[in-house]
Each structure stands twice: as structure tokens, then as C-alpha cells.
């Protein structure tokens, strides 16, 4: 199956080379595309050096818009599976095979979770509390427990590539898209992965934005849970 790794990148020139090197080691044959979200550093040049296809957006769209571009790229080029990986080095390509295996087994989405084996970078206490809250909320709304709904390390099957290429949240998309997928009766699996603290740069969710993040995502998740289903029975 044709597999694409989507790497949304904003100011990640320092982190990308290591990720590219690690991706070379992956035995499975995967293609890569970097979505350069209007970085002002030389993210684009770094990708060129490594011969990695790069889609450079002329305007900064934020993480959601960048990832959606990746899904559009995957749809356009006829990929069967798309895997999202952060450009900041948090996600270890070592686990790519494991994440992909669930899609091969017939799941529509597979999320790499930090909180199944609780190994590696576990994030701060307050962030873990926030993530726990979303796990609980998603369980309440959809009936399925997802231990790491904010994880951006995830693989999607062709059906979800189509869905996400069509519509994708603008910012903080991770928990919301899980609910959208479950709402449309797609099957989601989780596999344990070990994440690393980001190598350099800053997280998009700073302390001042935490309250805004919680409120916005809570609302988005509830809205996704009561949204109209798209393409019923099309599985």
C-alpha cells in the first residue's frame, strides 16, 4: 500500500534533518511530504537538500491548515495511507511500522499514544490533566476511550484521507478529528509509542493560551460529536 508521511513544519529547519535521517532507516517504503507553513527560516532549503518534496504555503495557515494540505496532497497522489508526524522531533520513526500495522489490519485510524505504557516523555502534569479530561470527554461522547487524543502521531486510511482533505479543523485539530472519525463510524486503534521532548523551538500551546485551548477544544469536540455525519454507510 502506498504510504505517505505528512510532516507539518513551521520554523523546523533545525529539527528536520534528524527526522529525515531517521526516516531513511525505516525499512518500509514510505514517501514523505513536508508542508512548510510559511516558515521564515530555511525549512524549505533543508527539505530540498534532502530531496524531500515540500509544499510551501504562501500564507501561514496554522497546524490544521498545514496538515489538511498534506491530506489533499495524499488524495491527489493516490496514497492509501497517510501518517502525520510532527516536524519537531517528538515522534520517533522507529514506531512507524507499529502505527501502520493497525491500518493494515483494517482500522481506519491509528494513534500513537504516550499513555499506554507510560514510557518516555510524558509532558507536564497540567498538560496530562488536560489530556485526561479530553479522554474522559471523548469517552462520554463517543463511548470509546482514547488514551492520548492530543497525539499528532497518527495514521489514516484512504477513507479518512478523503474526509480530512475535505474538511479539517483550523487549529488544535487532534481531539476534534478523533471525534469526527468516531462519529462517522470509523474504527480507531491506539498503539503505545515513546515520545521525546521537542528538540528545539517552542510548543504552539503556551501557558497563556492554555485556558483558551481547553475551552476551544472542549467546544469543538462537543460540536464534532453532534455534527452531521458525512457520507453515511460509505465504509
Amino acid at each position: 500500500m502506498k504510504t505517505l508521511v505528512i510532516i507539518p513544519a513551521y520554523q523546523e529547519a533545525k529539527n528536520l534533518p534528524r527526522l529525515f535521517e531517521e526516516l531513511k532507516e525505516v525499512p518500509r517504503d514510505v514517501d514523505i511530504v513536508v508542508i512548510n507553513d510559511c516558515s521564515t527560516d530555511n525549512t524549505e532549503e533543508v527539505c530540498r537538500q534532502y530531496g524531500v518534496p515540500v509544499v510551501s504555503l504562501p500564507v501561514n495557515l496554522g497546524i490544521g491548515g498545514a496538515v489538511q494540505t498534506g491530506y489533499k496532497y495524499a488524495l491527489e497522489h493516490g496514497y492509501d495511507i497517510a501518517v502525520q508526524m510532527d516536524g519537531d522531533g517528538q515522534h520517533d520513526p522507529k514506531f512507524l511500522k507499529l502505527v501502520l500495522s493497525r491500518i493494515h489490519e483494517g482500522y481506519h485510524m491509528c494513534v500513537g499514544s504516550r499513555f499506554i505504557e507510560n514510557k518516555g516523555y510524558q509532558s507536564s502534569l497540567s498538560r496530562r490533566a488536560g489530556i485526561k479530561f479530553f479522554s474522559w470527554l471523548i469517552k462520554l461522547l463517543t463511548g470509546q476511550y482514547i488514551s492520548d487524543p492530543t497525539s499528532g502521531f497518527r495514521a489514516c486510511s484512504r477513507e479518512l484521507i478523503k474526509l480530512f482533505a475535505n474538511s479539517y479543523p483550523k487549529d488544535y485539530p487532534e481531539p476534534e478529528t478523533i471525534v469526527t472519525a468516531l462519529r462517522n463510524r470509523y474504527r480507531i486503534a491506539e498503539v503505545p509509542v515513546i515520545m521525546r521532548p521537542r528538540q528545539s523551538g517552542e510548543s504552539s500551546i503556551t501557558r497563556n493560551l492554555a485556558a483558551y485551548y481547553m475551552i476551544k477544544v472542549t467546544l469543538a469536540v462537543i460540536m464534532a460529536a453532534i455534527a452531521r455525519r458525512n457520507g453515511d454507510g460509505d465504509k
Partner: protein
Amino acid sequence: MNQISTVLRIILIIGSLGFFIFIMNMVRTKKLELKYALTWILTSLSFVLLSIFPEILYFIAAVMHIELPVNALYLCVIFLLLMIVFTLTVAVSRQALRIKTLVQEIGLLKETLERMKK
């Protein structure tokens, strides 16, 4: 109930008529798109009507049990303003979505173009 003075009435009629003409002219010269100007046209028309027939306000106040007609005026104005702001929010949301799609399309096209050049 206090009646408004004739002078004030004339000033209000001239002012609201001027506002209406100004907006119609903006639409005529295509500086405002008719779609978004509709709420403004409606608003300015109601101002014209209210200044010519302030009795409308007395009537609204009486029907809704509002003690002072001036409060009925505030109610009308706030309602119209909310309507305008809401239509603007709808317009902004739609524009944002369209711009996002365009930006993504441009990015993808640029990538295709570069690959074809090679």
C-alpha cells in the same frame, strides 16, 4: 409624552436621508457589495422611517410596555447593529475558509510545478 421639536426632527430627517443616499451611492459605485450592504440599506431606511414617523417608536414602546420611547429607539438600533455584526461574522467565516482553500491549492500547485520543471 414629550414630543420632539420640529428643528430636531428636520435635522434627523436630513441626517438619516443623507446616510441612506450615501450608502446607496457606495453600492452604485461598487464600493460596497450589495450582498453585504443589504443590512446597511435596511438600517438606514429604518432610520429615515423613524425620523419621519417617530410615532412608530411610541407605538413600539406602548406595545412592548417600554416606559420611555427613547428606550424603544435603543432597542431598534441595538437590534440592527447586532444584525449587521452577525452578517459580518458569517461573511468573515466564509472568507477565511475560501482563503484557506486557495492558499492550500497554491501551495500544491507550486509543488507540482517545481516537480515538472525538473
